[in-house]
């Protein structure tokens, strides 16, 4: 018998079983088997087998039709039940849907942000063939810079056939005068080929000829409107600086937000030479260089060709190599120095995305917990459905569908909320997103994905639990097993609160790091320091200008300097030599050009030797080094030691160390203090630094403005306080801090929504128990403690789990900063207490209500 059974086509039977309608499955499969057996007897096994399979195949179309018909019919029923449930349990539905909607809004907004970061420079039609040239230089370690020497671009194009086109760019801030009005804008010098390589659409003018003439000027629409209003700018003359006139020859569309480069105007590279930029030297790097490779050339091939390109050129350093950086990777590239335009940060993208997803997950968990906790309410429905023939798979699909239905409602809410919140988000993230984004196909796809993801995660577990009820026990009314699932529920609540705690610790720590950086002793006094840009007119009459300012009692000191702590623009060089220098060790020194009084104005103390002073005439060869330099040079007593710059013959300059200054932070706290040398060269300075007293600041500024006007004429009195400028250096961190802050609030809020729902459900379930307890003499406070005790336990466990996790994660983040705050214990304890109090407050509302209810009401029906 057994062998005969096995002779039947098992797979075919399985498919048949699947295809046939539920109600007649058994008998029909039996019928097929019987006929099959007869056929074997009559016509042989092969024919029978063929027949069986042909029957299976013939069945497929009709069975598909059937299943669609029935699922539509059942779908209507499911939908009806879902809507009824939603309406009947309004409170829970609101908790669920609000939580989901908030989680979705976060995810959507972060999605916008991520797609914006990823879309950088994608709009350039030739983008995939365009690369930026990176320069790698060996000092004590290899550094990578995004700037190159002036002659590099043209030489590359000439000598390497794979490079079809090149364009250089170099920033410049211009003071433009038109019709007696002055506009200060940031733009740059470039080669006309820039327009050929990149997609930079012209509104007016011809890209071919716009920058052909060295006296031509191309403006963006925004600046053109600012300067000319509604006039036609083409052909108009703009006065720049003190001696140059430029004719406007082209108007560009504004540079899109997702472009790595930004400028408001462009002028010909020849102008850069005229205004004194070193364009022709292989010794100075000032230019961002872009190249376009021929269509069929790969990056690897070209990289091989250019790697050693500089070996044959008379460059400053022995070991200078080149490589290509794809245009699309510029924005999210990191670890590159002198990147003129700044970059995004991949790390923050990951952090935000993770935070948004976790918030969505917290909302999903609310749904899971509330649905399973309340599963008893729907057990009758499940029982009845099973009795009339529902299969478990159908029930799972039904409950999953309900979750997706709720998540659909949440999504609709989230899109509406997102549109409302977009302006606020733009402000928070300093972005410029428009609501049109919601209708972009890729975003819509993302929204659907979020919807399904949320629905599935939220609905999967409840569907699994709910569909498991056994009809017999449910309908008899003997189900008492609901509490059995509570371990999983507890774990989920613990997870929710862990995420909330991690975010909270994170935002506190980010703030404490920002606070640390703003308040760290920088080695000089950053308060009450005013900086001004030094222009040629003031430079010419500097002494009288200075004396006139010092006439005011509130102006304590004034000096000139080249590099400010805020711009970090220093002259970097490793060609310093001294007696006893290890010839194998290249050390990079930062150099700054200063005037007398530089260190006095900063209030950075000299620890050895002396400061620059008018009493010693020949200070042009005297240098002051910082403590780190002294260590790097290895001098016990550096005063009077001679140091040379450059190698070989005439290029060598001789210097003498006259003093050592205590280390101070001459750049932002994101960089460690490196060896620095101060050179006395007032004529090289580009900024004025004024130390004022802390009193009468407005009057002092007004006085300074008056003096400035007298000397500088129509140059704007554009002053900055150094401490404020320093703060803006940490804007990136502040922005991250603010976003994480919002995330933290939301995660706590959603977690509390869930807790609130669970607590109200628990209170409901224990109504009778509480009634009995009260009758037997329990006090109100006793009952409240009883109900809150359990929830507080979970929150404490969540804290214990979250603390070490957040400690490790944040320690990792802090490693990015050379100067960092300690991770303080109070952050953890504070977070713990705060979450605990919030959780207790959330639960105690329900607990109090339950405790205050009259036992007569709850026990009346017993």
């Amino acid at each position: 018998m057994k062998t005969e059974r096995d002779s039947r086509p098992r797979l075919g039977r399985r498919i048949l079983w699947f295809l046939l309608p539920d109600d007649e499955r058994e008998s029909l499969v039996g019928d097929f088997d019987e006929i099959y057996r007869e056929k074997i007897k009559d016509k042989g096994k092969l024919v029978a087998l063929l027949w069986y399979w042909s029957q299976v195949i013939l069945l497929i179309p009709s069975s598909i039709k059937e299943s669609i018909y029935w699922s539509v019919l059942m779908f209507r029923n499911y939908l009806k039940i879902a809507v009824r449930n939603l309406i009947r349990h309004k409170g829970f539905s609101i908790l669920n849907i609000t939580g989901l909607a908030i989680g979705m809004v976060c995810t959507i907004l972060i999605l916008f942000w991520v797609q914006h970061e990823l879309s950088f420079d994608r709009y350039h039609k030739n983008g995939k063939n365009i690369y930026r040239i990176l320069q790698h230089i060996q000092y004590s370690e290899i550094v990578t810079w995004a700037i190159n020497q002036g002659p590099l671009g043209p030489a590359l194009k000439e000598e390497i056939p794979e490079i079809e086109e090149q364009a250089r760019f170099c920033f410049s801030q211009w003071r433009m005068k038109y019709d007696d009005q002055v506009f200060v804008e940031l733009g740059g010098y470039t080669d006309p080929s820039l327009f050929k390589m990149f997609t930079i659409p012209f509104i007016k003018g011809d890209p071919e000829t716009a920058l052909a003439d060295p006296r031509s000027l191309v403006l963006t629409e925004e600046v053109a409107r600012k300067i000319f209003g509604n006039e036609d700018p083409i052909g108009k003359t703009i006065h720049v600086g003190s001696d140059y006139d430029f004719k406007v020859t082209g108007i560009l569309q504004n540079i899109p937000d997702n472009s790595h480069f930004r400028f408001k105007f462009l002028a010909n590279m020849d102008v850069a030479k005229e205004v004194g930029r070193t364009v022709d030297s292989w010794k100075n790097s000032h230019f961002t260089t872009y190249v376009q490779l021929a269509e069929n050339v790969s990056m690897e091939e070209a990289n091989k060709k250019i790697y050693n390109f500089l070996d044959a050129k008379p460059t400053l350093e022995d070991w200078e190599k080149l490589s290509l950086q794809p245009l699309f990777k510029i924005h999210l590239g990191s670890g590159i120095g002198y990147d003129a335009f700044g970059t995004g940060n991949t790390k923050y993208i990951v952090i935000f995305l993770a935070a948004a997803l976790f918030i969505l997950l917290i909302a999903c968990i609310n749904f899971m917990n509330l649905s399973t906790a309340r599963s008893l309410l729907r057990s009758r429905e499940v029982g009845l459905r099973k009795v009339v023939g529902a299969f478990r798979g159908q029930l799972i699909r039904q409950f999953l569908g309900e979750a997706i239905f709720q998540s659909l409602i949440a999504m609709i809410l989230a899109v509406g909320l997102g549109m409302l919140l977009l302006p606020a988000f733009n402000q928070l993230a300093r972005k410029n997103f428009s609501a049109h984004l919601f209708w972009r196909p890729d975003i819509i796809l993302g929204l659907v994905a979020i919807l399904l993801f949320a629905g599935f995660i939220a609905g999967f577990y409840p569907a699994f639990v709910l569909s498991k009820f056994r009809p017999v026990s449910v309908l008899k009314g003997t189900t008492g097993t609901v509490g059995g699932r509570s371990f999983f529920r507890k774990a989920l609540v613990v997870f929710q609160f862990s995420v909330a705690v991690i975010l909270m610790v994170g935002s506190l720590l980010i703030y404490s790091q920002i606070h640390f950086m703003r308040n760290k002793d920088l080695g000089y006094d950053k308060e009450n320091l005013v900086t001004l840009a030094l222009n040629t007119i003031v430079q010419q009459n500097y002494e009288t200008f200075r004396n006139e300012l010092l006439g005011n009692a509130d102006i304590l000191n004034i000096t000139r300097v080249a590099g400010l702590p805020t711009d970090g623009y220093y002259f970097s060089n490793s060609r310093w030599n001294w007696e006893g220098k290890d010839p194998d060790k290249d050390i990079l020194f930062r150099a700054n050009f200063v005037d007398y009084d530089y260190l006095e104005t900063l209030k950075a103390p000299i620890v050895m030797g002396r400061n620059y002073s008018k009493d010693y005439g020949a200070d042009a060869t005297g240098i002051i080094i910082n403590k780190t330099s002294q260590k790097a040079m290895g001098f016990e007593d550096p005063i009077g030691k001679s140091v040379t710059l450059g190698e070989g013959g005439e290029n060598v300059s001789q210097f003498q160390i006259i003093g050592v200054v205590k280390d101070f932070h001459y750049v932002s706290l994101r960089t460690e203090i490196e060896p620095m040398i101060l050179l006395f060269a007032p004529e090289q300075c580009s900024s004025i630094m004024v130390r004022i007293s802390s009193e009468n600041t407005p009057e002092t500024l007004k006085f300074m403005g008056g003096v400035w006007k007298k000397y500088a004429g129509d140059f704007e009195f554009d002053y900055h306080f150094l401490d404020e400028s320093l703060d803006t250096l940490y804007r990136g961190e502040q922005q991250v801090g603010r976003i994480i802050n919002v995330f933290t609030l939301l995660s706590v809020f959603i977690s509390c929504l869930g807790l609130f729902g669970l607590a109200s459900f628990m209170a409901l379930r224990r109504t009778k128990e509480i009634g009995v307890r009260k009758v037997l003499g329990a006090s109100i406070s006793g009952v409240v403690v009883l109900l809150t005790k359990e929830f507080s336990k979970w929150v404490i466990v969540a804290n214990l789990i979250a603390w070490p996790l957040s400690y490790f994660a944040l320690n990792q983040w802090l490693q990015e900063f050379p100067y960092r705050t300690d991770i303080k214990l109070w952050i953890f304890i504070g977070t713990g207490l705060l979450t605990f109090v919030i959780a207790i407050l959330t639960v105690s509302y329900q607990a109090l209500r339950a405790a205050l209810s009259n036992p007569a009401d709850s026990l009346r029906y017993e």
Partner: protein
Amino acid sequence: MEYLSQREEQILLAVGYLREEAYLVALRKHLSKIVGKELSIGAVHIPLRRIEKQGLITASLGESTAVRGGRRKKIYRLTAAGLAALKESKRITDRLWADYLKVKA
């Protein structure tokens, strides 16, 4: 009352004839023999389902046998409505035949 199709009428009659043995395989075999060609399962099953839904026959699950892989048979039985429908159908056909023969003769 709906009119029966020819196949439905044939199946109803076969159900009435086969009685306790009126399940799909037997019905198909019986009909195929009389019609003279092998009917497909669907050709029998689909009308069978239709008349079952109309209440002309009812079904119950019978015993299982080894030949059927242990699966039970679905056995159909004529209902009163089914019988009435058959009678009505016969009345109409008889009457039409009678008229036709009258003219022919």
